[in-house]
């Protein structure tokens, strides 16, 4: 009873949002906010500089963007389920939810790669115009972040499987959750600023 309570405290203490490591990661996220904001600013500044090339109205498929948005939103809620399972210390549930999150995240990246290849194939690559340079830089930077998030999820699936839900593993999952939810927030800004405003 006593030992269970103590180890329970360890898990919660390590995943407490106020520890120094978590604050450090928060500062990293703030620096990422600045990077993304500047990419958004650059995009807005040149968003009508088509250089005689195609505009967003000619290129963007809202249906695909909607599927990408849903994939990322579902991956957010499934990651939330993984966090709840983590606090309940149910190892197999944590693994299952992380795996589902990975599948949704991979679906998102797959759809984005498909879109990028299609654009290049149509002759609308990043070299075509300032608008497309800014588009590929902004959306590509977000996609790269999601890809690194997927690698991180894969690593954590391995750690949970091998080590179980120990205090250090729970602490890392906590920061991965921050990162993953943060990327979904950036995507809200992307589909609103780039796609929805672009096709109007």
């Amino acid at each position, binding site marked *: 009873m006593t030992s269970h309570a103590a180890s329970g405290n360890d898990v919660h203490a390590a995943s407490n949002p106020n520890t120094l490591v978590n604050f450090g990661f928060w500062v990293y996220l703030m620096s990422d906010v600045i990077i993304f904001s500047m990419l958004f600013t650059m995009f807005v500044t040149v968003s009508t500089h088509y250089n005689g090339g195609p505009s967003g109205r000619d290129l963007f498929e809202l249906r695909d963007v909607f599927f990408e*948005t849903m994939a990322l*939103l579902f991956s957010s*809620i499934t990651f939330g389920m993984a966090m709840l399972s983590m606090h309940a210390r149910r190892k197999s549930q944590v693994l299952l939810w992380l795996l589902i999150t990975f599948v949704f995240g991979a679906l998102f990246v797959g759809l984005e790669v498909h879109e990028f290849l299609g654009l290049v194939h149509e002759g609308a690559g990043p070299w075509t115009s300032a608008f497309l340079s800014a588009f590929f830089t902004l959306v590509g930077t977000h996609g790269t972040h999601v890809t690194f998030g997927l690698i991180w999820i894969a690593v954590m699936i391995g750690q949970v499987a091998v080590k179980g839900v120990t205090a250090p593993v729970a602490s890392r999952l906590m920061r991965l959750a921050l990162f993953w939810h943060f990327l979904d*927030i950036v995507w*809200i800004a992307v589909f*609103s*600023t780039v796609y929805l405003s672009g096709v109007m």
Partner: protein
Amino acid sequence: MSTSSHDARLGGLNLKTYLTGFVLALILTAIPFGAVAFGWFSSGLTLILVAVAAVVQILVHLFCFLHLDFSEENAWNTGSGAFCVLILAILVGGTLWLMYSLEMRTMIAGG
């Protein structure tokens, strides 16, 4: 008693908060996509709707998924966030001001 202290330590981490956030996010995604895809409103109104839905959805994500609050315990997170907003106001505001001013001037000079 033990349940309430357990909940407090999780910082509002529970199923209800996640599901509320998820449903709100779905609605706040469907509205702007629908408005743009089916042209429910004039383009000016649609643009405002897209912006408002985005801001509200970001707040929903912050509170329901990231569990952000302005409590005393999160003072450092809030403080660094506020500093970040100040930096952004200078960088983003300054860039937009400068670039639009430049565009106006070059249009006049170029004729």
